[in-house]
Each structure stands twice: as structure tokens, then as C-alpha cells.
């Protein structure tokens, strides 16, 4: 997990007590291939042509102790889905105030989910990726400050992770490439662990703006006819988003049960309220682990134009608005079964099959087979 040079450097710096800017290197990689089980099906970026690019990634983490409790860490990740372009997922300065409190400043992962902190480190969890139905926020990192406080509460080890910052990374939405802004992002996660049991809860809020040509044009037209409130509901501009998460993990002699529930609401938008959860059961047999996951993803919508009578010239705005609102409604579920084989100390081979069904539009139903070679180094 660590380069030899760094180990020697670390050892020598301990012995001499000299502070040297040595760089510690580590990393991880996933090489993932996937194919849907019949033609004209598509799921999670895969289709009926075997693809090794979409789910693959390679990351290198470099960190350096610059003395007085300060460390600098950068994690760069190249993803196949971005044509292997390299991106800084983490780039922060950390400061250990004491044994319990650690402060991070810079680019870092927002602790939205149970597996957020090591979202890309497939080696650290059973699946190839955590269930996409739950793990589907449009961003995972932020730029800002965080504090991690760890303490013991009776028999429980507890960790409190608070963040404040913002995100403005480019995304794809409604068929457009856009640069959203998540401002005043703040919130935190609390995790309690005791032997075999882990409990977690998280809450975050942000002011969400997603400039989109299609929605902004429609909103402009609503405003032009004097329906300002409908215009405000159509565009996504400085709308308050709230997200919360509850999770648990039980790990009993090789039997593991994991569950996570999330809820996302962005007020005064046509995006709808999203609720997702999954439940996973796994059992380990020496170097093999089998798992099964059932998950549900639901978006409920609110048609704010329903009060308007139909058959007026306003239909020119009402119908397309209703069309977009209706397209957000979702009732999806999936079952994933998988096998993980730890054939090497630092590498595992994973196989997974996902049966996905869409209760609203059955033409989205799909079966997906994936395999992945995951390593840490």
C-alpha cells in the first residue's frame, strides 16, 4: 500500500526526529468490464457491447508531512468514462489539532454516504461500486473546510464529520453540459461503531443552481407572461436542497448486513423528491464472498401547473413544463448478486449481475453483467 522509499524515509525521520518533506505514495485501481444481457438495453453507462472503459479508474494518492502536525494530500483519479482524463478528487491540507480532532482544508469528499469517503476504492467494499440507485448525487466532492472529531462513547467509537464549502464542477444534466453551483454547502455525518455494529446518520443542505438552456428558456417564457412563480419553479436557481442519510452495517463472523436510506429534496424546482434505499446481505467463505442486494429508487413529483386550466394559449408553456415534471417521476428497483474472490493480498476479482426494473417505463428494464479486477497499492 505504500512505496518502500517512503517507508524508509518515514522510519529515518522518526529516528532522527528531523522533519523532511518526504512524499508517501499509494493508490488503487479498478478495471471493470460490463455488458447488458440483451440488445437495446442500457444500464449505468453500459450497453450490449462489452465495454472495459466506462467503469474503470486508476488513482494515485500522494501525501507529505510538512511538520508541526500538518500534512498535504492529493488524490488524482483517471476515469475511463472521462476518456481517462485526470482529475484531482482530493487536494487538501490537514492539521491534527490533537488525537481527537483533525481539520481539513481544500478539495475533499463530502461524507454524504456510508461509503463516500472511499467511494472509488472498490477493494474496500463487496460490490464493484456501491448501489447506484442510492449513490447518485450529481457531485461527491467539495471545496472547503471540514472537521473530523473522533471520540469514544462508552463501548462505541464515534466519529463526527462536519463540512462547509461549495462545489461548481461541470456535470451532464437534461442532455446538456453545465456548471452548477452548490453554494453554502454545509452539514455533517455521525458514525457510531461497536464491535460488529455501525450506525450512521448524515444531513446536508446547500443552495443549488443548475443553469440549463432548456429550463431557463421555459422559465423566461413563464416570466414573460407574468407567471413569475412558475418561472421560479421551472428554473433551478438558488434553490434550497436538503439531503439526509441513515445507514447501518452489521458484521458477524463473516456474515454482513448493510442498509442505507437517503432522501433528497430541492425546493421550488421541478426535480421531484427522491427517496432511495438498499439492503445488502453477504457471507464470506475464506477468500470468497457472496452478496445479494435489493434496492429501490423513487422520485415523487409535484405538478405545480395543475391549477391552470387547459385549452388556453398558456398550454404552449404548461404542456412542456408538465412533460419535464412527468419525466422526473421514477419507481425503480434492482437486485444485484455478486461474488468477490480475494485471490491476492492486494487484489480481488469481482463478478456481478444486476436485474433492473423500471415500474413506470418497462423499456428501461435491463440485465447487466459486470466483472472487475480491483487493487490497492
Amino acid at each position, binding site marked *: 500500500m505504500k512505496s518502500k522509499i517512503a*517507508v524508509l524515509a518515514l522510519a529515518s525521520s522518526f529516528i532522527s526526529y528531523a522533519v523532511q518533506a518526504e512524499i508517501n505514495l499509494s493508490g488503487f485501481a479498478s478495471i471493470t468490464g460490463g455488458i447488458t444481457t440483451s440488445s437495446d438495453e442500457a444500464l449505468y453507462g453500459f450497453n450490449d457491447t462489452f465495454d472495459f472503459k466506462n467503469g474503470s479508474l486508476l488513482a494515485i494518492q500522494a501525501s507529505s508531512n510538512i511538520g508541526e502536525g500538518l500534512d498535504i494530500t492529493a488524490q488524482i483519479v483517471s476515469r475511463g468514462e472521462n476518456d481517462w482524463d485526470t482529475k484531482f478528487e482530493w487536494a487538501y491540507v490537514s492539521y491534527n489539532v490533537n488525537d481527537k480532532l483533525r481539520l481539513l482544508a481544500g478539495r475533499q469528499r463530502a461524507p454524504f454516504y456510508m461509503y463516500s469517503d472511499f467511494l*472509488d476504492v472498490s477493494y474496500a467494499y463487496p460490490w464493484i461500486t456501491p448501489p447506484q440507485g442510492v449513490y447518485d448525487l450529481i457531485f461527491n466532492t467539495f471545496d472547503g473546510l471540514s472537521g473530523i472529531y473522533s471520540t469514544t462513547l462508552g463501548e462505541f467509537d464515534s466519529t463526527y464529520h462536519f463540512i462547509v464549502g461549495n462545489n461548481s464542477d461541470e456535470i451532464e444534466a437534461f442532455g446538456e453540459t453545465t456548471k452548477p453551483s452548490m453554494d453554502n454547502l454545509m452539514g455533517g455525518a455521525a458514525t457510531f461503531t461497536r464491535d460488529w455494529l455501525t450506525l450512521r446518520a448524515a444531513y446536508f443542505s446547500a443552495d443549488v443552481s443548475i443553469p440549463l438552456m432548456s429550463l431557463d428558456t421555459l422559465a423566461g417564457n413563464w416570466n414573460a407572461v407574468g407567471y413569475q412563480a412558475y418561472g421560479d419553479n421551472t428554473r433551478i436557481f438558488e434553490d434550497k436542497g436538503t439531503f439526509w442519510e441513515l445507514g447501518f452495517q452489521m458484521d458477524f463472523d463473516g456474515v454482513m448486513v448493510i442498509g442505507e436510506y437517503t432522501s433528497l429534496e430541492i425546493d421550488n424546482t421541478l426535480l421531484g423528491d427522491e427517496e432511495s434505499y438498499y439492503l445488502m446481505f453477504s457471507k464470506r467463505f475464506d477468500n470468497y464472498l457472496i452478496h445479494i442486494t435489493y434496492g429501490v429508487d423513487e422520485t415523487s413529483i409535484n405538478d405545480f401547473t395543475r391549477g391552470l386550466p387547459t385549452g388556453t394559449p398558456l398550454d404552449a408553456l404548461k404542456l412542456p413544463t408538465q412533460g419535464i415534471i412527468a419525466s422526473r417521476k421514477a419507481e425503480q428497483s434492482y437486485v444485484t448478486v455478486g461474488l468477490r474472490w480475494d485471490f491476492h493480498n492486494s487484489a480481488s476479482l469481482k463478478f456481478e449481475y444486476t436485474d433492473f426494473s423500471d415500474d413506470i417505463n418497462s423499456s428501461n428494464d435491463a440485465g447487466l453483467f459486470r466483472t472487475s479486477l480491483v487493487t490497492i497499492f
Partner: protein
Amino acid sequence: MKYIKINAILLSTALSFTAIAEVAVIVNPANSSALTDREISRIFLGKNKTFANGASVMAANLKDESAAREEFESKVLKKTSYQVKSYWAKLIFSGKAKPLAEFDSDADVLNFVAANPDAIGYIDAANVSDKVKVIKTFK
């Protein structure tokens, strides 16, 4: 081709699993801390970072696939080598902790512990010398 490589890796891992009799947890002779099994385990999981006297712990780990490390992980940490790696991967790649210092051999750990009053390590009990103090052995 891949299949052959995987087999070669499996073979080499299998060969390195040479059992040893006893693992000794060692500290500097100047260190008078008494540690329970649970405290030793928490130190090597990065959870306890100080001794009772307040000094920062310098925990010395053996390199991957060392016989004593396998023994220590299963007997003291009560985890498989995969679970320990996975545990540390979570901490390291999420910025929550730094990895323990790793050493190539029992002799390197012994010298490190002998030279640092706040160091703690574990080695094959057969390799212990009077330069360090054994606080616990695990069979």
C-alpha cells in the same frame, strides 16, 4: 496469460504462509505502560494514539506478507489480512489516518523500538533481544 499469472501469485502467497510459534509485542525498555490486548489491538488499528503517560505512540508494523504480521493480525487484531488491508485503505484514502510505519524485517522493528522510547512493535518471539521489553506474547 492472466490465468497463469494469477496462479503464480497464488503460489507465492501460499509459500509465504510459513507458520511461526509465537508473536511478541515489544516496547522500549524505558516504556512502563501496561497495555491490555484490546489496547494493543486499538494501537495497531490507529484508534489509540497515545500511551497512558500522554506520549504519542509510534507503532511499527511489519511489511506485508511477513509471517509475524499474519500471526499478529489473526491473533491480536482478530482480522484476516484482507480485512486489515481493507480497513486501512478506508482510512488512508479518506484522509482519516496515516498508515503505520512499515519495516522490512523483525530486526528492523527491534532496532526501531530499541531506539525510540515511545515505539511499539511486534516480532517473532524467537527474535527478541534484551534491547527491548516484551509486554505480551501471543501463541
